[in-house]
């Protein structure tokens, strides 16, 4: 079964242009642009951003699963909305009725808020 584990990072709300130019600290950072003015940087240890009013907060409220092809096939059955065809594009929608974010790739990232993690595990039979 894939592991759906808590992950740490940084979350930033700022002007879109400031987010475009943000410099993320840390190795192996995955930046999810969850809205034009909001980014979730998984694995980041800090950020430099040019917006004095930006809201910059450490984030421990998400869980992530890294899915190989077989795992992903098991998840797709629980998605009833069209997925983007290009890899690395962030998709946001419900997986088995649970709000989630997906980045297609190798591996595919399945991101869910920790409050939903148990429910998602249960619904996916993990």
């Amino acid at each position, binding site marked *: 079964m894939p592991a759906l584990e*808590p992950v*740490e990072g940084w*979350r930033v*709300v*700022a002007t879109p242009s400031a987010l475009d130019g943000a410099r993320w600290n840390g190795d192996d950072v995955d930046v999810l642009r969850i809205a034009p*003015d*909001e980014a979730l940087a998984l694995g980041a240890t800090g950020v430099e951003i040019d917006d004095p*009013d*930006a*809201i910059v*907060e*450490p*984030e*421990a*409220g998400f869980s992530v699963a890294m899915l190989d092809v077989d795992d992903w096939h098991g998840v797709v*059955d*629980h998605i*009833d909305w069209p997925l983007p065809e290009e890899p690395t594009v962030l998709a946001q929608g*419900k997986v*088995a*009725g*649970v*709000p989630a974010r997906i980045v297609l790739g190798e591996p595919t990232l399945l991101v869910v*808020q*920790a*409050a*939903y993690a*148990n*429910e*998602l595990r249960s*619904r996916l039979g993990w």
Partner: protein
Amino acid sequence: MTDAPAEVAGRIVVDGRPIEFADGDSVAVAIVRTGEVPGHGGCLCLAGDCGNCLAEVDGVAYVRTCQVAARPGTVVVRHPAGGKPQLPVVDWRDLTLMPVGSKIAVRRTEADVAVIGGGSSGQSAVEAARSAGRDVLLLDARDGSEVVGIYPGPSIVARDPGGMLHVRADEIVVATGSVEIQPACPGSDLGGIVTAGAAERLEAAGVDLGRVVHVGRELLRFEGDAGRVSAVVTVGMDATETTTPCETAVVDLGRAPRDVLARMSRAEGVSAVGPAAEDQPLPAPPRDGVVCPCMGTTVDDLEAAWDQGYTDLELLKRASWAGLGPCQGGACLPHVRSWIAARTSGPPPAPFTARPAARQITLAEAAADVAIDAFRRTPLHDEHLTLGARMDRFGGWWRPWHYGDAVAEYWAVREGVSVGDVSTLGKLVVSGPDVVEALERIYPCHVADIKPGRSRYALLLNERGHVMDDGMILRDAETRFTLTFTSGGAANAEMWLRDWIQTWGLRVHVMDRTMSLAAINVTGPLVKTLLARLGLEDAPRFLGHIRAEIAGVPCHVMRLSFTGETAFELHHPLDGSVALWRALMDAGRDLGVRPHGLQALFGLRLEKGHVIVGMDTELDTTPRRLGMDWAVRMEKPAFIGRASLERTAKLDDSRRWVGFSMDGEAPTEGSPIRSVENGEIIGNVTGSWTSPLLRKALMLGWQRRTPFADRVEIDGREAVVTPTPFYDPEGHRARA
């Protein structure tokens, strides 16, 4: 009429009695073979079209027994005559631990064209689509694929031997053929009446039907004895009536489209072909008796609804209930259309819409792999279970209702110290050069004068001045605030803020921290002692807030009170929550610390008269109705809802949310509040609690009649209107 099978294949149990069946019998045929009927009368079609053979089969209610093969040991319980089968009673203490039933598999598939029905018209549709190079899926009930419903998309939900099948198709073709028209006349609800097709099936199965009378459109009525048909009365061209005794009446009134599925969706991409789409001659308009056997709707019911003005077929359906039952008009629709045509001397109206399910399915089948609202868990969920909490769903979260003794939890708050999980509260951070302007426009209270490090309670109103939510405004810095909201209202409040900020074009950033931060409410007269042990030496004063480490966990410490005692909310990152909770429990052991659940919290807040938006309020509740005008500053030039409040302030208002008290135990929440003068209902109780401290029943509730009463009757007892807060009205304890 009683006819044991020549070769017994086994026995089923019907209402506790074993009966024998022959190889190939459906449950319905096996029952008819004994001379009885599977339901409680009505014409049997034995083709799955009507609802006259519904019964409970192996614990599943509303099963069409004509569609279920009899197998040894099958247990059939007939539904109560004129009633509904009893629902099973479930009493799980903790729904999170409820065992999961057998999993029903769901397969999803896609096709260019899905054809429902494998008869000649269905096969033609399949061949046409295939020859056009399209990918075709054929669903045929005879192969075990029973279509339950057609939905927008278009999509199909079907049941087959493998479980449930969900199909997405570009095009759906309904080729379900036609049905035999059922009789609708006096006596048509008797047993012993079958359609011609059913008679053929019974005869083929070797069932002795006794003395049979075949009847067609000359049918006038059936006569019966002990619930079974005993004679058929027909009328001739010369209006003379003829009575023919019988043991079984075989009815042939023509055919109608089997269009239940086609009537479920008028969406693009769904079409009917063949007999399912053909307009057939309607039967003669019914003059008396039952029209809709599923719902028991009579011609008199149609007349009554029509006379009330429900003359559109869809409205007549809703008003008379004809067509609302399991067969969704399969039996009654031709008769109702014919009746309307006769009534209006016009053409029959187009058929009414049908609703799923075309085949009755269990809740488990309906819910299989279908996502329902996901309820969230706080990071302390397992801690609560370890402490014996009974968990319940509240505001979109699993929350502890109590830990076994709500009264002890109450006393811990009032006399010692207690912890409560309030991680579910809505939490937004807002920041930007226009943030004060935005909040001044959104909230009805002043915002600009809140100093950094201070906070204020606030209502959230809509444009009509109705209360949407409430919470705290905490100023973190000149251009940055933290806002809190109720657990159930947080998502709506966030959208509300974002919409208005965008509408006004203000420069404000919004970050939702509801699920990123946990929060523990630590409350009680000994709370400062406990928090000092864990590092909080300089606690903020009432309505102040600071950042501090408590037990090594970085916290946003908010001094406020919902319980009426000194209280601090410790908002902190999720990954520190369990450590903080355990540190509080350990450090407070000698202080008698214990957790409190929602039940105690609701009692504590009730003693303080605090409103819970959504529980105490209604969609049109204004601050005035709540007695909370103090939370609205009408001297502000503008805020959402101000214009409505100013206008309605000049009008009388017949609603007030007030406190009540009386001796004895608290009544059930929701209890009616009655006038002591005449017993009329003048309101209802929204919150109710037997106060362990004040030793009386305290209630909050609505009065909806003026002049407002000083004394009322609740639960058969006299209660008096009592000013709130009931407890510590000066608020000394919260500020201590």
